[in-house]
């Protein structure tokens, strides 16, 4: 029998091919890193159970292929996601530019309530950096999305990123289920308010 858990959150990683989605997930789920690049075929997922506020949360994290030819398959998974990580590579400007497209993709295919987060990965490779942190932050603010620079290789901010996203979902859950008891439960989500509330530990990267 599986371990018991309180909530199941479904997360999704998207972003251009080669930005390190799989590595982020690998780091988060197995705390390991592999330098060889193996392109993800279609989709994959990993599980990790975390604890937040005394609740056991099982994270099912879907990893998607960045390559366009898998787009059909990968977009099919947007719908089921409660949280989506948008990942770009700080050493690859193109991947950063494409974040806009990925966001558009989310808007088109994902649930409107989905929590989002932008990650600039490979921040250990500062010498090859093409996208400044400020640029990333600016983009995130424009969209009202949280942002973190991460490194799967050096294990920087990976835990923080997933925990933040999970916490945001948790916050939304509690607000939805506890606060509006008689009004419609599916009211618009104020992401900004949400942002400031819980994750003070990383607010500095945001503002």
């Amino acid at each position: 029998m599986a371990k018991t858990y309180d909530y199941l959150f479904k997360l999704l990683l998207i972003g251009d091919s080669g930005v390190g989605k799989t590595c982020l997930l690998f780091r988060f789920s197995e705390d390991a890193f592999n330098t060889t690049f193996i392109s993800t075929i279609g989709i994959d997922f990993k599980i990790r159970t975390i604890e937040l506020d005394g609740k056991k949360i099982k994270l099912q994290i879907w990893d998607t292929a960045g390559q366009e030819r898998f787009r059909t398959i990968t977009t099919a998974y947007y719908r089921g996601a409660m949280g989506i990580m948008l990942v770009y590579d700080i050493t690859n400007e193109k991947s950063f530019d494409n974040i806009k497209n990925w966001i558009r993709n989310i808007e088109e295919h994902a649930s409107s309530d989905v929590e989002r987060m932008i990650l600039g990965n490979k921040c250990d490779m500062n010498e090859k950096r093409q996208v400044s942190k400020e640029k990333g932050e600016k983009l995130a603010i424009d969209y009202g999305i949280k942002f973190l620079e991460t490194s799967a290789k050096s294990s920087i901010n990976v835990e923080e990123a997933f925990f933040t996203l999970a916490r945001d979902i948790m916050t939304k859950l509690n607000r939805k289920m506890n606060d509006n008891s008689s009004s419609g439960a599916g009211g618009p989500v104020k992401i900004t308010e949400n942002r400031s509330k819980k994750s003070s530990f990383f607010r500095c990267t945001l503002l």
Partner: protein
Amino acid sequence: MTDTVFGSSTDRWMCPNDRAMSLRAKVPAGWSVRGNQPERPRTQEELTDEEKEIINRVIARAEKMEEMEQERIGRLMNRLEDMRRSVAGDGVSRCILCGEQLGLLGSACVVCEDCKKNVCTKCGIETTNSRPHSIWLCKICSEQREVWKRSGAWFFKGLPKQVLPQPMPVSKSKPPQAPSELASSEPSAQDPKLYSRTQSRGPADAGLPTEQDSYGGSEEKRATGRKPVKAREPSHDAERGYSSEEESPAAYRGRKGMRQRPEAGGEAVATAPGRGSYPALSRKPSEARMGPSGGEYAGGEPDRWEYSADSEVSRSPGGVKRANSVQGSRPPPPAASPSPAAQPAPPAGSRQGPGPGGRFPERQVSQLMGPLQAEPGYSAGAARDERGGGGGYPGAVAREERTARQPAAYPQAAAVPVPPTPARQQQPPQDEEEDEANSYDSDEATTLGTLEFSLLYDQDNSSLQCTLIKAKGLKPMDSNGLADPYVKLHLLPGASKSNKLRTKTLRNTRNPVWNETLVYHGITDEDMQRKTLRISVCDEDKFGHNEFIGETRFSLKKLKPNQKKNFNICLERVIPMKRAGTTGSARGMALYEEEVERGSEVDERGKILVSLMYSTQQGGLIVGIVRCVHLAAMDANGYSDPFVKLWLKPDMGKKAKHKTQIKKKTLNPEFNEEFFYDIKHSDLAKKSLDISVWDYDIGKSNDYIGGCQLGITAKGERLKHWYECLKNKDQKIERWHTLQNENHIASD
């Protein structure tokens, strides 16, 4: 996998083949932010079979996980429902939960925020949750919220929002689109696949389109005639007056929506004509596949989870689509063959039993549509729309449709109990001589596979040991051409869950080797004379829609005590017939329905294994409650939470009573507890020991399952046991006793 891809608007259902290609050509490569153009299929076509297989494996893995998740949600739902059932008050002058008098003289009263019923402060829960003022919720509504949180329904606005795409067709191994393979894997259109379902549900249920078989398939898991937990839930709510006050349009729509949604709809029709607006917390996978927008339910509070007519209309095709997609992932239904003659027969290829006749055309279409999985959804949806009276679905039409559909479906399901189908007739009575059965051969039997097992009746220990050795050449049930087989055993007749045993599931094999021994305890000579062992091989499936592969039955009276007998038989599909004419009994096959009737006369409450010993050292009687078997199920989930009470009567005061621990959700509890009565041997003869088995219920009085009295005034086995105990001091004597209901005890 396409269910969400063809997202949003008018041309979403168009066939992508040609148009997509042309559009695709115009779209810049790379970032073709797709509008409504379904250019996807083409990209998909570029994938190699290897890639598709890898992806399918991931999907299969996800489905397994989802299955577990569904089970978990099921448990949550069960618990919630249990609470609902134990409601005691009216919510006005008496606390809705405990029934305590409210008001001046009674307990303090608060109003539940969600259901607006009055509850006492003990049954209410105060929450503040970042609101300026705190609110009260009754325990049920509080639990309800918890279920919404835990199931993910809070996000998707309905249970369970699993959005797994279906496996992709792999050209080399994937059967569904190859008609030739079709024919071979599913040779007979009459193949009565509906078997497993029919035995647990009535014909009316069988009328539902596809989904009900999801019940049927998983019948041993949850439905078993007792209560298909989830989908029926709404009806309970309605009965309870929970929130069905108004048949508001929203509620109505909701109901209709359920109707369109194959599974839940069917269930609702069958069980709850008057159901209101309670959320249909269906955890059916069929909708699990659809996008969240599709998953809406009529809300727990109508305004709360209400969804719009649009979303509903748009969702119904989605539901159907998913239903089809399930089929797509299985060996193809024979219905795909264009012959009209095949249509009335059950669509053997899918896990489902037969849908109403109207479904077949849809299915055919979908089959013809080829590998693009979205198309089946479309065609089915469209066909259904027509039947349902178009997108608007005026309520009356929906109703009409419902009634119309039921009769239509009936004959098929009814075909099960009533006339022997051709398939059945062709089948020689395999159990008649099980030795010959080894060499028995037929098209169908060979397709289903063979099973090797051995049986041993251990008379001394009152046990029947069934060793499931292996199966060979099982019919492929999954899209990968394999199956996830397990074996389950039933003793007929009898309460289905109480006497069910199963092996573990072996994954992805058609030649499973279980080597597992399953033991029935408490089997008496009488049982051996009377009972039939049904051994069925099933395919465990995603979402727990387990699918019946084949079975064999063995009349236990042919088994000689303490002699192991080996079998190697071909599996067959048996349709339980009410009246099989003369053949039935002549063949020694316990025909299910008949047996059930006979069994019910006996009114089996179960049996209990009790040990008695008078200890001279300790100067008292030691009563051991070892285990119970085949207890009657008292809870909605088809199980009981049994415990045993002992009472040494008369005149023993407080010390006279003992009880065991409660064993949760089982019909075959093992207690292994001993209790001591400090009593002189001479006094003991005048006493009698009252043993009763109860089903523990939270919040209401426990249900009496059955009991028996041992003592000098008892009769038969019960007297004998007592007597032997008195006679043989310091000797532990174990005996099985049949539980009887109260009347018997009283009359004893």
